[in-house]
């Protein structure tokens, strides 16, 4: 701006300084405006955590940590404990994960290694559409279509030849843990398989060709090259799916049947942390009941934060390793 001896027609110091001042204000202004927005996102996260803790504080003060391993949830006597719900969350998400993990890896392999170009795009888009289905719609289908099918066909079928295990016996219901597991599997698979596909596509072509060149079959190539190369990422993909399953409230509430108790049988009715919160949103009468629902939300928040952050850490390490 302070160029030496400017030509007369370029000499407009007033104009130049005004422009430079405007630019200085504009630059810092935009920088701080955008930084403010980023800080706002952090504030939102902080506020969510703070408000959940604050909402739960009455219940935390009243029941303390034993809330986590007490079973009774009785609004009539104003006594609350979370163990049933933690069990329900763990068993439904865990079994759903058991089905969803191999399915997601298989779909990821199909989309990255096997499918011809045209099919790849179409099936990929369809799997993403499955992820876009609102959970309330899956829940509606779960309660009105899947539930009756589970009661009259699937549960008798499973009971007839797996009935000797403790997991497949007892009364048949239209709702319960089994439909909740199926619904959750449907919700995990599109998320995890989309990430798996992206991961498998990052495997360098030379490595794959080298494996084929050594005479390996396609499966041996996948097991020897693709899976070891992406191992961490695949774990993260499945963890992200688990994060979704743990926090899923609506669809699970619709199918799980809101019941007390810990049952080994998958045919039994049950409840999860998220579904209990959703089911009792209007029924909570005392302030202790409301606060206990917030306590449940806090436990859920901690679970999902641990799962999601570990997934992120794994992904970061995976990216670093790739960069190296």
């Amino acid at each position, binding site marked *: 701006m302070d160029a030496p001896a400017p030509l007369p027609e370029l000499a407009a110091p007033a104009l130049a300084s005004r422009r430079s001042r405007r630019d200085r204000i504009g630059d810092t202004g935009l920088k701080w405006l955008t930084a403010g927005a*980023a800080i706002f*996102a952090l504030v939102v996260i902080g*506020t969510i955590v703070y*408000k959940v803790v604050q909402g739960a504080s009455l219940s935390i003060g009243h029941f303390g940590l034993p809330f986590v391993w007490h079973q009774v949830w009785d609004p009539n006597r104003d006594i609350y404990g979370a163990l049933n719900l933690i069990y329900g969350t763990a068993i439904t998400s865990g079994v759903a994960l058991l089905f969803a993990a191999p399915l997601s890896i298989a779909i990821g392999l199909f989309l990255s290694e096997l499918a011809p170009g045209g099919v790849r795009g179409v099936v990929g888009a369809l799997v993403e559409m499955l992820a876009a289905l609102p959970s*309330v719609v899956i829940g509606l289908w779960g309660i*009105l279509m899947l539930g009756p099918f589970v009661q009259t066909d699937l549960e008798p079928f499973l009971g007839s030849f797996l009935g000797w295990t403790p997991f497949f016996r007892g009364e048949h219901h239209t709702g319960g843990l089994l439909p909740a597991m199926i619904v959750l599997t449907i919700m995990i698979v599109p998320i995890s398989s989309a990430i798996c596909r992206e991961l498998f596509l990052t495997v360098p072509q030379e490595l794959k060709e080298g494996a084929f060149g050594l005479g390996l079959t396609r499966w*041996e190539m996948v097991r020897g090259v693709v899976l070891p190369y992406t191992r961490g990422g695949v774990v993260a993909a499945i963890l992200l799916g688990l994060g979704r399953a743990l926090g899923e409230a609506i669809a699970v509430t619709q199918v799980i049947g809101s019941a007390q108790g810990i049952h080994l049988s998958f045919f039994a009715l049950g409840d999860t942390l998220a579904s209990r919160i959703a089911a009792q949103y209007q029924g909570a009468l005392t302030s202790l009941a409301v606060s206990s629902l917030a306590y449940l939300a806090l436990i859920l928040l901690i679970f999902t934060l641990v799962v999601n952050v570990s997934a992120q850490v794994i992904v970061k390490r995976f990216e670093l390793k790739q960069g190296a």
Partner: protein
Amino acid sequence: MSAVSPERRLLATGSVRRRKRKSRMVEVVAVLSSGLAVAVLALVVLTVLFKALPALNLDLFTKTEATFGESGGGIAHAFVGSMLLVGIAAAMALPIGVLIAIYVSEFAGPRTAMLVRSSLDVLNGIPSIVIGIAVFSLLVLRFHQNAFIASIALAIIMLPLIARATQEVLALVPQSLREASQALGVSKWRTVLRVVLPTTLGGIVTGATLGIARAAGETAPILFTSTLFTNTVSTDPHHPVASVPFIIFTYSESPDPNLHKQAWAAAFVLIVFVLVTSLTARFILHRAARKLRTG
């Protein structure tokens, strides 16, 4: 077997055949798994379509809930309410999300950018029911339920989606474009607003569309913030309004078959809306990315 001809050697025998068969089997499993996922999607969408047909008529969009026991009626109040909720939420989340994306890609250093991106991922991973509880104890306890508060909860859910999508497209803008602009003496803020942002319009639209599709189907944050609505069409954000996902949720739990029919019809409209917006978003993003890559 003393002299094996060279051609014989090239045929798969014994263990090679076994290995090939195993590989083939795994391939079949992969194909079947993908087929299963597509079949589940088709099953849900077609079920919703066929169940919705009897209740898909003009009444659905023009009338409100029929009085108890009567058939007919519609869910006009829910459609209007959902539009109001999602509209306000988008108006709040869009500018903030785009600003965050600009900060991450244009101003922040690598460490700060990483921090902000990770926090957006954390926010995205918080279950929507927990966001509902937080907004409930932050605002509903003080101001009672209203549509505006529900929109805030939905905006929190949209924010990371919008910021993420915008930022991904901003990262595709060639660095040379920014350098060219600054070499001409254009200041940074003008470069960002006049050169970088216009080229990423596609990304911003994609982010907004994805956010709207997601928010339109969210039920959990509405449970605590906008449920005590009346059976009339209302556009007043100071009071709770009905919404399509909440109507589906309550109707699905009711024993009334007439309400089930309407829940299917509402679900059908919601699915069509969500799938069309998601596909549009994909299409726009694809075009925007291709334009940026080819220059």
